[in-house]
């Protein structure tokens, strides 16, 4: 019986870096799953995700909670990237946020729907603690690269890690 999840590539940062990127993603899988543990090296928390270095056609709708209230928001197709949220350097030391992107049919010719969840617990109030995102990249190209950065020029802190899995359905 074959393994369903196969590791395509991973990255664990030995020092702070501006980007975490995966390239040359083969089209031999059915779905992709990216699992990230990260923290900003400075105050930025908004993680920006781009496919194939494209800066257009993204939209997002989210549901989140900050420990005191739940809220929802959206951005239209004018977005230049997908989004997730991570811990910043102002949160409790050594706490890293986690988020996951699931991309079904990433090599197909339909627009690419992306489901993501993120969790940033830090034993303190403030910031986005937990959320769900429905994303869409309106592009018919197969996804062959994924790039992560943090808005405002914040680097990813050392020891941030990302694991990209390919999912085979047969």
């Amino acid at each position, binding site marked *: 019986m074959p393994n369903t999840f196969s590791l395509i590539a991973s990255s664990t940062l030995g020092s702070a870096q501006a980007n975490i990127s995966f390239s040359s993603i083969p089209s031999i899988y059915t779905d992709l799953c990216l699992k990230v543990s990260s923290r900003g090296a400075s105050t930025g928390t908004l993680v920006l995700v781009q496919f194939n270095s494209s800066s257009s056609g993204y939209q997002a709708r989210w549901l989140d909670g900050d420990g005191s209230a739940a809220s929802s928001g959206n951005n239209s197709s004018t977005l230049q990237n997908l989004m997730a949220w991570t811990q910043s350097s102002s949160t409790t030391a050594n706490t890293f946020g986690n988020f996951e992107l699931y991309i079904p049919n990433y090599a197909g010719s339909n627009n690419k729907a992306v489901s993501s969840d993120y969790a940033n617990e830090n034993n303190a109030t403030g910031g986005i603690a937990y959320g769900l*995102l429905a994303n869409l990249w309106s592009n018919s190209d197969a996804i062959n690269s994924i790039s992560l950065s943090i808005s405002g020029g914040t680097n990813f802190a050392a020891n941030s890690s990302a694991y990209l899995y390919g999912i085979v359905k047969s």
Partner: protein
Amino acid sequence: MPVTYSTITTTTLGSNQSTVTFSSFGGYTDLRMVLNFKNTAGGLAIRPNSNTSSIYSITRLSGNGSAASSGRLGTADLGGTGWYVPNVFCSTTNFNLITVDVMNYTNTTTFKTILVRANDSADTVGEIVALAQTTSAITSLELSCDAGGQLASGTTITLYGIAAA
């Protein structure tokens, strides 16, 4: 190391379908269904064992892009519709991801509860817990749409089995 997460079956619809049914999935502890889903109208209904009795209820936590909310539909609302994903989570335009976790599906002592994660980037994102008040072991899952809708051509549905040992 044993394989714990296995593909049972996958199907991509070649045309619009009123129902899609999975069966023959014994031998696992839990099930996960992953749908890259579009429909022609309505919400998504999932009936275990094609049970049309009035046993279904749901509670949702959702965000529509401007507000977060929670609500529920009871057996008086759903009747025999099935475990239900309301139409605000479904799209007639884009294929969106819906995941369905069915835990401990073969037991014959407890009612069956599922957890659904649903996404429509143009409407609503959220999670749904759905209950079927039956102690029967689940041997089939029947998918359909209400409001006269169909599962759209191109929809991909994959059923995974999770073995605890």
